[in-house]
């Protein structure tokens, strides 16, 4: 697959369709490829596409669409929702992107492998549904299904929402999976004290590294409200703890109705906080209260929070449903 993508990238660079390529490059370990920009055919030797290329490249297109010429970008099915959402918000220029939709069998989660006993990982190879780990303290073989990210278990399906061409592994027919809200529901049925304890346990670990904010394609403000001293919310300007304490709730609210549920926030969190469960709660509520809505499925529908009907539910529904 990887070879096919490299060959196609070289062709597009060669015939001048694009002037640069946004993709993934080998990292220092076999399981941490990183997003990278390739400007020459030679540099593409470092290009990689495997189960660890979970990173969503759409956000990079904000900056890249400001540059001269087209950029080739590889988007997995779920990444295309983010791209569309950015088009809707006028943040990326559709005309500046050449999109190759690549297929995805679910992104691998190295932490899951570690949890399942792989210690001192040296190399990981994929072969269909099997993932083999060569490690210092004993090799391991896993079913792919057991070591993919949580977000992929609730995959939105194989279809690309936007593309110029599809790679041969793209499977537009691949069905969506169920159970997207099962974890949210688990939290919902707790009593309030349990819920508070659950979130306290999670959120207290946050080290405010901003990785979630930086990776999130919806969190793409030129200047974050928390860095905006005109708002009196930025901790730096106002010596209190508001930002520190409210960051995640406000972040979730700001992306409500815009978050495509790509799951990058949770993937990059060094403290493994399930941040996407905040966003999914909003998605679930929006679907329940205002009808099903999938951010990024199109580029022209009105987002739920900039829309209304005169018959909307009253906020008291929150108390009434108990």
């Amino acid at each position: 697959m990887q070879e096919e993508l490299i060959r196609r990238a070289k062709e597009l660079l060669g015939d001048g369709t694009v002037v640069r390529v946004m993709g993934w490059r080998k990292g220092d370990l076999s399981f941490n490829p990183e997003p990278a920009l390739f400007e020459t055919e030679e540099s593409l030797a470092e290009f990689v596409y495997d189960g660890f290329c979970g990173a969503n490249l759409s956000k990079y297109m904000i900056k890249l669409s400001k540059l001269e010429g087209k950029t080739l970008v590889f988007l997995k099915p779920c990444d295309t929702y983010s791209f569309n959402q950015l088009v809707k918000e006028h943040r990326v220029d559709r005309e500046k992107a050449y999109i190759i939709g690549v297929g995805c069998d679910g992104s691998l989660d190295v932490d899951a492998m570690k949890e399942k006993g792989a210690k001192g990982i040296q190399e990981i190879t994929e072969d269909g549904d099997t993932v083999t780990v060569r490690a210092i303290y004993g090799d391991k073989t896993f079913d792919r299904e057991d070591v993919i990210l949580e977000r992929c278990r609730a995959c939105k399906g194989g279809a690309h929402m936007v593309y110029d061409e599809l790679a041969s592994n793209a499977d537009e027919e691949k069905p969506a999976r169920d159970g997207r809200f099962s974890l949210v529901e688990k939290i919902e049925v707790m009593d309030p004290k349990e819920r508070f304890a659950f979130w306290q346990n999670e959120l207290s670990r946050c080290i405010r590294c901003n990785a979630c904010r930086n990776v999130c394609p919806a969190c793409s403000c030129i200047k974050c409200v928390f860095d905006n001293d005109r708002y009196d919310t930025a901790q730096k300007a106002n010596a209190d703890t508001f930002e520190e304490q409210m960051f995640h709730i406000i972040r979730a609210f700001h992306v409500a109705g815009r978050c495509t549920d790509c799951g990058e926030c949770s993937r990059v969190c060094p403290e493994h906080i399930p941040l996407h469960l905040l966003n999914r709660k909003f998605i679930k509520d929006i679907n329940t209260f205002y009808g099903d809505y999938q951010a990024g499925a199109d580029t022209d529908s009105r987002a739920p929070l900039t829309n209304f009907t005169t018959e909307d539910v009253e906020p008291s529904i929150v108390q009434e449903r108990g």
Partner: protein
Amino acid sequence: MQRIGVFVCHCGTNIAGTVDVKRVVEAVKKEPGVVYAEDYQYMCSEAGQQKIADAVKNEHLTGIVICSCSPRMHEGTFRKAAEKAGLNPYLVEIANIREQCSWIHKDMEEGTEKAVILARAAIAKVMLNAPLQPGESRVVKRALVIGGGIAGIQTALDIADAGYEVDIVEKTPSIGGRMSQLDKTFPTLDCSSCILTPKMGEVNAHEKINIYTYSEVEKVSGFVGDFSVDIRKKARYVDMDKCTGCGLCQEKCPSRKTPNEFNRGLNTRPAIYTPFAQAVPNVPVIDTEACIKFKTGKCGVCSKVCAAGAIDYTQKDEIITREYGAIVVATGFDTINLDKFDEYYYNQSKDVITALELERLMNAAGPTGGNVVRLSNGEHPKNIVFIQCVGSRDVTCRGKSYCSKICCMYTAKQAMLLKDHYPDVDVHVFYIDVRTPGKNFDEFYRRAVEEYDVDYIKGQVGKVSEAENGRLLVQGVDLIDNRQIKMEADLVVLATAIEPNKDVRKIATMLTASIDNNNFLTEAHPKLRPVESPTAGIFLSGVCQGPKDIPETVAQAGAAAIKVVGLLAKDKLVTNPCTAQSNPLFCNGCSACEKVCPYGAISYEEQQVMDGGVRENRRVAVVNSALCQGCGACTVACPSGAMDLKGFSNRQILAEVDAICR
């Protein structure tokens, strides 16, 4: 460095009675930024305002806080005082320690503590206030009057006589309204159409007045001085220019079974009709639901008989968009539905009628040619019972909590006229109170009793039913004689409560004019601004604002007109400076703000932005401050905080929250 002055008003004992104003002064003096504080008997008085002016000069104040009544009361007064003293009027904040503190708390300790906190919040806010400059907007020299009854007619005439263009939009095929349905008017008993018809003619002929009948307001945008209104001119299917008003089409129309609205359904009318003989314009309309041609495609009699060739079955509704500087609502009233009052037998018997129906029966142009008869058998009634307050002063879900105001007088009028025309009838009136405030009103009512022998019974009716001889059986009570009455009657007349026209809610929503629980439009101030809506540029005329009789309606119509003239006479209006503004440095250009703006005040443009030394072209939001009304919806839609509202900025509101939660 901010220098804030705080002024605490006693408002006589209104505030000082429950708030220890001296302690408030001492407490606020300790607040950072406050350099001056004092209390005074009446801050809004000349002397109080002078104190503000002195302090601004002597203490070089950069902002002031007045702890007093609601800002809705005197914010304007204090802003003007500050301006006179050389301080930008928007550097004034009010802490509402009367309506929201002293008047609702009884305990001095509690009241004082809360007053201090409210003062602190205002101080925290004023520290962040910025001087604001109001902008200017244009005034379109044309007024719109919605409703063509006596209220709308009078308002339009008065505005037009002052030299301004006026359009009247009337929903029905003719102007005239309720007054055209009345027979005689109290307390002078002159004929209603005799005094109304000349006014209708005057409106029709006035070169400054343009009438859209059979038309409705469909959409309103804009703001005071500069409204844009879409008017739907419904298809009449009769060419207004060609029609001569001969009436032949109405005579020949074979579809004659539609209840006649003008006669309150007491008889029927043809499918092509003018509501009444003196209609203005005297051009009929075709009711497509009744018209055989429209229903089956066959007929066309009207077209055949029309010598002028005015019938045009292909006419379509037309949308006219016009600009106005002011809008007057004069949508009038209707009587309430009596379905929930079956004890009065109204829906069961033809001989139980509303007072408005009786007007039509008494009118020479009415369905019985002015003969008052029992509709069940055509006989003259011998015994007539009037029941007052049917649905009025009724706080249950059946009725209206208010007094309909006109019923006492029209009942006296109708009773008197009946006795006058038919000296042999007995007339009884069951009443709770007889309310006759007004010039020559009580004298009028007493004439009914003393000269015409109308029997006024203090008490009410419990039930009207059928008597064995086919008459009506009225069971009531006489509270003075302490006796239950069972009386046979031939005709029962119900003084049915009135309510605002059903369309008023829709219209008020379009105009963003506030409306009360009874669907009456709210005035800007119940005493001091009775003909203005709180929404600038919207004025109220007639019963849409509250029950009133004809003289009062005409007086209010004139008052509304002079307010409109006062507005239209201005060349420019000063606009509210508390508008939104977007900081291009923070703006993502995402369009969220534009989507929630009700005024279309936000647009986007490519701007060159210098950010951290880098020059960049960005798509950024721009607010048109002439259109922006300052609601703030955009500020919340904006994730980055680029959009903010002057006068109610994020920092200001957060400062208030912090001060209260300290």
